[in-house]
């Protein structure tokens, strides 16, 4: 078991660490390993570890395997598992929470496409308070560099032009797009919330 970036208070007790630092982590111990969730994921065949396995690994103290797994990043937030779990675990939130925690600790897989997209999404929305769909799309296409971006852009040209024609993508968003009036207040809220959460987890911002 690795202790990389592990807050001192949880040495050698990964379950406790998860309970304290991961969204809804206190519910992990309620899992009875029935496997219903494992059969519910739409992208299930692409997961290295199902939620069931992840919860078992947490209890077995497999900290590194869990936090470096790319399983959590395959979650589409479909809520199938939550609707079906006999023990009412908030599985989706725990998976999101684990992904967030692994990401904040710097242990999540590098270059994982959903991780990159999720970061880009959050940065995009917190910049102006609202999502700039054009910049989000372009940013996503160009994440692997200019060449790959142009290739991807050309491949998806039909989609972009269709949206443009239907007035569902605004080329002027490149200049800024929708934005909040009280942007300063919005930024202050986000910064404060992050500061409180990091303090609670014993991390520095």
């Amino acid at each position, binding site marked *: 078991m690795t202790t990389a970036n592990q807050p001192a208070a949880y040495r050698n007790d990964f379950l406790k660490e998860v309970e304290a630092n991961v969204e809804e982590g206190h519910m992990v111990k309620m899992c009875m390993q029935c496997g219903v969730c494992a059969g519910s994921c739409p992208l299930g065949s692409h997961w290295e570890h199902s939620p069931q396995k992840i919860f078992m690994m947490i209890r077995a103290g497999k900290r590194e395997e869990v936090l470096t797994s790319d399983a959590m990043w395959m979650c589409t937030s479909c809520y199938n598992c939550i609707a079906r779990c006999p023990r009412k675990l908030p599985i989706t939130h725990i998976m999101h929470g684990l992904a967030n925690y692994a990401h904040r600790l710097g242990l999540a897989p590098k270059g994982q496409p959903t991780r990159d997209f999720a970061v880009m*999404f959050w940065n995009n929305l917190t910049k102006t308070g609202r999502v700039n769909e054009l910049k989000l799309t372009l940013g996503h296409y160009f994440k692997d560099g200019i060449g790959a971006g142009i290739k991807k852009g050309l491949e998806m040209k039909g989609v972009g032009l*269709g949206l443009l024609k239907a007035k569902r993508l605004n080329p002027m968003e490149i200049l800024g797009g929708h934005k909040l009036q*009280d942007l300063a*207040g919005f930024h202050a*809220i986000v910064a*404060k919330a992050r500061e409180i959460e990091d303090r609670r987890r014993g991390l520095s911002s």
Partner: protein
Amino acid sequence: MAKKNIAFYPGCSSQRKSSAANYLVSVQSMCDKLDIAMNEIPDWNCCGASIGYAEGGELPRVAITARNFALAEKHLPGQDVVSTCAACWLANRETQERLEASPHLRAETNEALGAAGLSYQGNTKARHMVEVLIEDIGYEGLKAPVVKSLEGIKFAGYVGCQTNRPFGIAGESFENPQYLDKMVELAGGEAVPYDQKVTCCGGALAFSEPEKSQKQIRDIVESAYDHGADMIVTPCPLCQANVEVYQSEINKKQGTQFNMPVLYYSQLLTVAYGGTAAEAGLDGQIIRASRLEEIAGK
């Protein structure tokens, strides 16, 4: 005075010239006919969507959504916060439930909101437009303004995930919700049986994991064809966009011939209520719904 006043939370995808701009246009027309006044929450911000989790964490996500509630409480007191987007509604409901359940989280949230001179009192109720339609207006009330029948058009009612799970619409099952079919029928259309009704479209992973998501989308469209549908109808902007725009991609890669229009319930109702094609946002379809346009033009 309108029959019903709501604090409207459009969400990013329903802004002008955004990917669900046609949803917004048709919802506005539909609400006009039903005498529902949509009062936009002033200076609302993004809900964080589901994919916001990775960088956002819990408290920042809760706090930005609580900001919208605080603004609604301040400027539109006593009105329900109503969203049209499934992900917005989910974020709003989840946030509200957590703030109600945990005084600790609420204190932290209010500490964050204080940085902008706001506070959350807990006096709003987060709802989906579909709930307002079904619970406040009722199926009879929804049927009353119908002046044109959508007779002869077959619809596959695609509910998707987040309007359905984990909260869903009261009285509906997770596996086979009926409300969308009922809306189709009260507008005179035919709701075909449809076995992909609650299948996931891939959500935000349509962007980051296109191959895997397109397999989902292929099943959703194929099954609509198999059941004889002419069009798909959905309440969710992400489902609508994913299922409509990737059909050409799938055709290109897999040699299918998909060309299935994907509409919102609000577009169907607007046409049934006598609205024009423009009022129903039909000019916003990438795959044109020509038979609906014909009815709207009559």
